[in-house]
């Protein structure tokens, strides 16, 4: 990717993210509006904790969306500047370069929620299942997240409540969406869908391997099965060798512990720690 490509990709990404956010929330708004119509017409019961006045929530939602998109837009400009400096960054394939590229390459940003299907697809070297998966399960999760977000905003309504700035609105959206996605991931439907994906990708990979094996045999190339056979044999020989070595080892003289057990004493570290930040999860 050239610096110009990066800049363009950056702008596209931020814009696409903003649009996706807007779209998700528009869909949530539409769902709300339809839901309201259904409720008022008596076709559907109100869901638990549904705010009585949904029009207020919808207005909040629109304002929140606008604020968040403004924040993303502002960030677009500065990230775009960084993107132009990328070619001058240190070379090599180490962690610094990888981090810089992750920062500026939108393709690696979108790995978050769709990462599993990408990994599976790479493992199978076959087609992506993301569309199917997301269409089937994840879209609903995002819509639910949008609905919850609206409810949260409506719940904050009232005298004396602090105004949310764009960052706070984004934080609220992140937390709400995270919660919804976690719940979705634990659902039977999601787990079954993911299991189906694993079955499909492994079946594809196995079929590909069988095909390659067929041609390999035909042309006299070593096949995966033959290599596996060799590896199994080597592992078994190593296992036997370890066992033989162990049998030949001279037993270590036993030093018996003495004295009774003392209660656990807590000691402080003898050296000061200047660590200030809790570690992050992998």
């Amino acid at each position, binding site marked *: 990717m050239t610096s110009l490509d990066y800049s363009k990709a950056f702008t596209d990404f931020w814009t696409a993210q903003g649009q996706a956010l807007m779209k998700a929330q528009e869909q949530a708004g539409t769902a709300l509006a339809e839901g309201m119509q259904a409720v008022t017409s008596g076709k559907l019961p109100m869901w638990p904790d549904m705010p009585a006045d949904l029009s207020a929530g919808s207005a909040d939602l629109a*304002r929140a969306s*606008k*604020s968040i998109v403004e924040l993303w837009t*502002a*960030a677009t*400009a*500065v*990230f775009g500047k960084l993107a132009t*400096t990328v070619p001058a960054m240190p070379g*090599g394939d180490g*962690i*610094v370069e*990888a*981090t*810089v590229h*992750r*920062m500026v390459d939108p393709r690696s940003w*979108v790995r*978050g*929620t769709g*990462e*599993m299907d990408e*990994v599976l697809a*790479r*493992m199978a070297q076959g087609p992506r299942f993301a569309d199917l998966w997301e269409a089937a399960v994840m879209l609903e999760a995002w819509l639910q997240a949008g609905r919850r977000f609206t409810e949260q905003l409506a719940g904050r*309504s009232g005298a004396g409540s602090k105004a*949310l*700035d*764009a960052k706070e609105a984004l934080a609220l959206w992140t937390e709400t969406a995270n*919660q919804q996605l*976690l719940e979705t*991931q*634990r659902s039977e439907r999601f787990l079954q869908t993911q*299991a189906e994906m694993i079955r499909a990708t*492994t079946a594809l990979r*196995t079929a590909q391997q069988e095909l390659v094996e067929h041609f390999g045999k035909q042309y006299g190339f070593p096949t995966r099965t033959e290599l*596996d056979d060799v*590896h*199994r044999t080597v*592992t078994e020989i190593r296992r036997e060798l*370890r066992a033989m070595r*162990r049998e030949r080892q001279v037993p*270590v*003289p*036993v*030093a018996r512990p*003495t004295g009774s*057990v003392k209660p*656990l*004493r807590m*000691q402080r*570290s003898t050296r000061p*720690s*200047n*660590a200030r*930040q809790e*570690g*992050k*999860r*992998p």
Partner: protein
Amino acid sequence: VTQIGSSPATVFSDAARLGTKMLTGGQLLHGLRDVDVQIATTPKDLVWSQDKVSLFHYRPLAEKRVNVPLLICYGLVGRWTMTDLQEDRSLVRNLLHLGLDLYVVDWGNPSRADRYLTLDDYILGYLDGCVAEIARRAGVAKVNLLGVCEGGVFTTAFAALEPERVNTLTLTITPIDFHADTVEDRPGHGFINIWARSLSPEDVDRLIDANGNLPGEFMGAIFNQMSPMRSLLKYNLDLLDIMDDEQRLMNWLRMEKWIADRPDHPGEAAKQWMKDLYQQNKLVRNEWELDARRVDLGNIRMPVLNVYAKDDHIIPPATSRALASKVGTSDYQELALAGGHIGVFVGARSQTLFAPAVVSFVEQHDPPRA
């Protein structure tokens, strides 16, 4: 109605602040080289190796206070370098500063050629070899073991099968009852347990057989799935928060280096891990067999210190604490640390609690030199 929205002035000011951050951060990153991002730097020597497994002995940083050496045993998911991430967040350094004689085992980088290695090989082969070598070098019959996560399962099984060779057993964020995630059932916690049970044993076999091993990248994706929005925002908004602070940026990069180093899990061993333990929960039921020997937790008669993280979403506390009622010793203690799975090693509070507790524990049970 809640007021939301930023004025144009606020947006402009935010953008200006972001611009300054990006400029400073860009300069910092520009000046960095890969060699600047180092982890696991505490000096050590290779003292034994077999196949791809290496045993390292740390050089002392203080006068020895404990006669029996301690071996740190990480699992095959991730690498032990987490225990020595950086100088001011290092369990290894903290233990050395408190006078421990310390070893660590590195399982290497398993490839497709290692797909037939089993947990029997790792526990009763390689780990056994490490324990024997440490005992030989130190002239002792028993060593202290400190197992981490999957490595904790290794040391637990070893202690149950070879109790005469283990002086004390310290476990850290170690699953024992793989179905105890249902005890608290906290949202976002224990997803791997739920996910593993959603697959059939045949699914696991097919997944492994199709790939040879359990790819490290695959496990990384599962971990990321456990905090979906954080994973989505990690390389943009999260990084933006810290990128103009050199110390925090370096901490972040070191963590990235550790995360990126995720070896593949040997295939047959992964099948055992997923099916025998996550699905069939054989360890806590005393039904697990290695080399045709049943792992009976009641044989763990040496002193046990079980360390868990109160907010561990990967290994929920109940899955670790299940050991209490299973061991064959009354000398069983627990240490609950604040934070999550990795916070145990790199969290600021852990730096002053974890290592001192371990050293105090092994020191109390240290036999005098003959």
